[in-house]
């Protein structure tokens, strides 16, 4: 049950990031709602998951899926650079974030 909340939280984080991308380019009511609503629901589900799982574990999985997803989403749907140095740097960040959160 706890993991379902973590995955829901990560899913809404993707929505938040897509909204963030859209909203930063053109400020519409819809993009603003997806941006803030996505992140809001993401936090809500993450906090709910803490009732069932260890905080550091839930946090590490959520931030790992969320950050990797955010990056891939922007590469494939919003045409951001897929250069090797960029992908390698992003992989380092994701490894670092997950590792550090898992140890906290």
């Amino acid at each position, binding site marked *: 049950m706890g993991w379902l909340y973590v995955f829901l939280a990560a899913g809404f984080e993707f929505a938040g990031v897509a909204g963030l991308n859209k909203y930063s380019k053109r400020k519409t009511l819809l993009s603003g709602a997806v*941006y803030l609503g996505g992140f809001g629901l993401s936090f809500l589900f993450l906090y709910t998951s803490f009732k069932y799982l260890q905080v550091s574990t839930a946090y590490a999985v959520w931030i790992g899926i969320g*950050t990797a997803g*955010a990056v891939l989403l922007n590469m494939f749907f919003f045409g951001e650079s897929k*250069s090797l140095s960029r992908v390698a*740097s992003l992989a380092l*960040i994701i490894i*670092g974030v997950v*590792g550090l959160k898992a140890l*906290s």
Partner: protein
Amino acid sequence: MMQKAWFYVAATSFFELVWIFGFNTASEWWHWIPIVAFILVDFHFLTKACAALPTGTVYAIFAAIGTIGTALMDVLFFGQTLSGGKLFFIAVLVAGVIGLKLADGRDEKTQTEGGN
């Protein structure tokens, strides 16, 4: 233009740390008023940063700084120890952030030269 965008990245990361600190220390209901205000300021700068830099870059750095900041806060303010493992992942994160800034700077240059 690029310089200003990185200022926005720094501002969003800073305000992120302020509200995370608030989350960890809030004890009265009214403490949540400034925390929510800081979150709104934080999101304002996050949007500004994404208008000029790739959203993926900004978001990854935002997550990285938040993670490093929380780990350091635990050590400085909440009496946790900084293990070798944590230091290792902090170093990996810093390398990733620097690499990303260099990579995006280069991509930007190639794009401009390509006439986009």
